[in-house]
């Protein structure tokens, strides 16, 4: 009989979901329409509960971000540590895949009856903001910023003041003076209207990013026929290649001209000072992460080393 999977993602169709759309297309093609995917943008679950939905078996495939709920998926939050030194989407894919394949990660997601399929590589969350541009690292002192998770912690260590507002309220938070700056990936800076007001952008600060995997329900995966499973797993690389191409050409293709058109000041930092900043912020946050996750029984040091090692290659 025909297999139909429900896929839970959220928001609108955008660069961030193009690999899922591509995957649905490829899988249907390869199985002559026997295996189809029904992608729902927010209709099946709240984004912070996609992992719950997978665990229940309400849908077969879903996307979520590790930082939404660190305690649900501590293993992959290692990929959200600040200043890991990732600079391209390809590197982000490589490092994600390495962590996804680690037995501790597999067991961690296994608690949710979930199998990691592929990442949704996001560029670095650089800051865009109003007011005085932080042209040196020292200028971060007292800067109000909307930054969550590890990036928020790193900003605190640099003397900045993180404030939580939802991404929907981010623009209003800038307008109303709650924060002077927002840490987002470029597409989010554009879609949440930050670029309509931003005066500057920290081009090479590269403080970190979020990690948003695509997972499948393990039972549903096992229930697939061999040819269906092959069609699914065999489409991962092609879907990711399509995603990266789309992100680099469509999103980043708009980004550069937008910065120019709006006259946004592009800040590039002195490499040595940047290294100092990393030293100041990255080390302590990573150390804290390792300590906390050892307490959970994760091989935290090993996961962290795996990230650094993969990036060194």
């Amino acid at each position, binding site marked *: 009989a025909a297999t139909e999977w429900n896929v839970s993602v959220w928001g609108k169709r955008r660069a961030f979901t193009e690999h899922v759309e591509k995957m649905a297309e490829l899988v249907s093609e390869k199985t002559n329409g026997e295996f189809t995917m029904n992608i729902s943008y927010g209709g099946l679950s709240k984004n*912070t509960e996609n992992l*719950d939905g997978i*665990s*229940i078996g309400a849908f077969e495939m879903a996307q979520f971000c590790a*930082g*939404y*709920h*660190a*305690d*649900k998926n501590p293993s992959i939050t290692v990929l959200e540590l600040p200043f890991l030194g990732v600079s391209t989407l390809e590197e982000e894919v490589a490092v994600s895949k390495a962590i996804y394949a680690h037995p501790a990660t597999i067991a961690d997601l296994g*608690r949710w009856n979930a199998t990691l399929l592929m990442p949704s590589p996001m560029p670095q969350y650089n800051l865009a903001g109003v007011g005085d541009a932080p042209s040196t690292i020292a200028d971060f002192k*007292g800067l*109000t910023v909307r930054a*969550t*998770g590890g990036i*928020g912690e790193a900003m605190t260590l640099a003397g900045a*003041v*993180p*404030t*939580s*507002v*939802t991404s929907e309220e981010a623009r209003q938070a800038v307008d109303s003076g*709650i924060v002077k700056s927002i840490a987002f990936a470029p597409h989010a800076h554009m879609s949440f209207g930050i670029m309509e007001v931003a005066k500057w952008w920290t081009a090479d600060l590269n403080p970190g990013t979020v990690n948003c995997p695509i997972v499948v329900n393990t039972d549903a995966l096992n229930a697939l026929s061999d040819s269906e499973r092959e069609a699914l797993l065999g489409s991962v690389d092609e879907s990711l290649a399509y995603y990266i191409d789309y992100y680099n050409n469509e999103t980043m293709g708009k980004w550069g001209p937008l910065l120019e058109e709006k006259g946004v000041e592009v800040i590039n930092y002195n490499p040595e000072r940047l290294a100092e900043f990393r030293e100041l912020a990255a080390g302590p946050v990573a150390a804290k992460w390792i300590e*906390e996750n050892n*307490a*959970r*029984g994760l091989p935290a040091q090993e996961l962290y080393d795996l990230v650094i090692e993969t990036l060194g290659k």
Partner: protein
Amino acid sequence: MALKASVLTDDSLLSRMDQTLLKLEQFFGLISGLAVFALMFLAVYSVGGRNIFDSPVRGYVDWIEITMPLIAIMGISYTQRDGGHIRMDILVGRLRGRLLWSAEFVTTFLVLVLILLLIWGSWAHFQRSFDFAAPLWSRDSTIDIKLPVWPAKLVVPMAFTVLAMRLCIQLTSYGKAVISGTDTPVAVPMIEDAATIAAREAAAVTGREQA
């Protein structure tokens, strides 16, 4: 906005159970109200902290998300006791006697089944966020300052359990009324026409104005 209908009382066991449960419900309702109040102070503190002392509250959104279930759900049985959950009573309002109590019995029974299922579902939701082996027993945390979410999730099955007890009392009363055919069952909200309810509502407001 039929927020308060009258509930008859007497010395019967059923009525005493109703009034005992009411005390618990009022306590839960007051927690709801106090949580709204706390939210107000949190916002004042947050704005003040940011604008006056230049030190915003970290995790402001996280705290709101943890508090909201207390506000929104804790008092659910308190509201059910007085018939405060709105409904369309054009049809039911025309029924009298056994026919009315039978209709009430059937809908109350359906609601009880629903709530029992939702206790199961919301308990499972809580369980997925709870882990005795984990730090702070937490397997689900908020986005910014990583507060454990399980206490907020536990509020739902807790409040629903009280509601289930309330529904059992109401179901018993309706059942007895179907058998006896009485016009004045205890422990259930009496059906009143909109005008009577409005008069009561107005009287409540008037009382406050004079206070």
